[in-house]
């Protein structure tokens, strides 16, 4: 692996953010909203583990902790993409977004 990349790697989030997410996850308010939306209670332990691994990397440059953290975040990203889109994404924004109002705008998006 390229030594330069390894030297400049840092956790995807600040360690403090993991701790804040863990606390927020466990809060009554969040547990209530999760039940209200999904009918279940949230699993919060992963945030705590991520915080622990983040601190392990920061204090001891522990590569196992780094890999565990990366794996956890990649799983989170994959979970966010776990649906089949209904529409096709654009490569460029709509042509008429910035056009002045008094011009004829085509209906085609």
């Amino acid at each position, binding site marked *: 692996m390229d030594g330069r990349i390894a030297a400049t*790697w*840092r*956790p*995807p*989030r600040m360690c403090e*953010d993991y701790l*804040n*997410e863990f606390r*927020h996850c466990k809060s009554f*308010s*969040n547990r*209530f*909203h999760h*039940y*209200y*939306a*999904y*009918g279940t209670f949230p699993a919060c332990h992963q945030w705590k583990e991520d915080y622990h691994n983040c601190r392990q990397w920061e204090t001891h440059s522990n590569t196992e902790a780094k890999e565990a953290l*990366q794996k956890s*975040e*990649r799983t989170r*990203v994959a979970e*966010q993409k*776990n*649906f*089949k*889109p*209904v*529409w*096709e*994404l*654009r490569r*460029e*924004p*709509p042509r*008429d*977004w*910035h*056009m*002045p*109002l008094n011009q004829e*705008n085509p*209906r085609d*998006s």
Partner: protein
Amino acid sequence: MDQTKQDEDYGYELFPERHEGMHKKSPFKEALTTFNHKCQFMLQVAMETSPYAKLLLSAMNNSGCKVSKDRHFSCEDCDGSVSGGFDAASSQVVLCQNNIHQQAHMNRVVTHELIHAFDHCRAHVDWFNNFRHLACSEIRAANLSGDCSFTNEASRFHLGLKEHHQECVRGRALRSILAVRKISREEAQKIVDEVFDSCFNDHAPFGRIPHSKKDAKFAYRDYMNRSRYYANL
């Protein structure tokens, strides 16, 4: 194409100021007889202070659709109890100045309509001909804007707990479609059901369902941090 029929088909009758030939009103008269200034003021506050709105504006900027308050928002009088709309033909968010009287409501309407604008910006959404696309954007807007929060539902006397959020999202998406398109309730329900799982799970650009302002602040923080995040995955 006959303009009247086109307007009826796409719900433009709810927004009478959008009809042709009704734009010119004396600004002085308008200031005295409408809620226009109050609407403009509340809009400014929403854009500057709501983490929901700030995140969406930032995401749109990064998608190539920089939002200009004067070009992309319009405070107008609307029919009935409609709070707002997104007009894809003119790339404008319409805010119903006669129906929005509280800042919290303005924040929510701005968020809801910006979600439509964001979808318009990042995807080929066929607003006028594809009901699945319309349903999807309505599901997302109801899901992510706070429309279906426990407090808002309770204030409508819709009391429910387990998974009620989803029931609310389905219901509001259905209502929104029926308000702007000539389609039967059964047909609209079928379309909402078809696209629900996909669209309910599409949380862009929030990365989560922002149930509260705190969630929205966390989402905004994550969005502003995304370069570092993706670079170190």
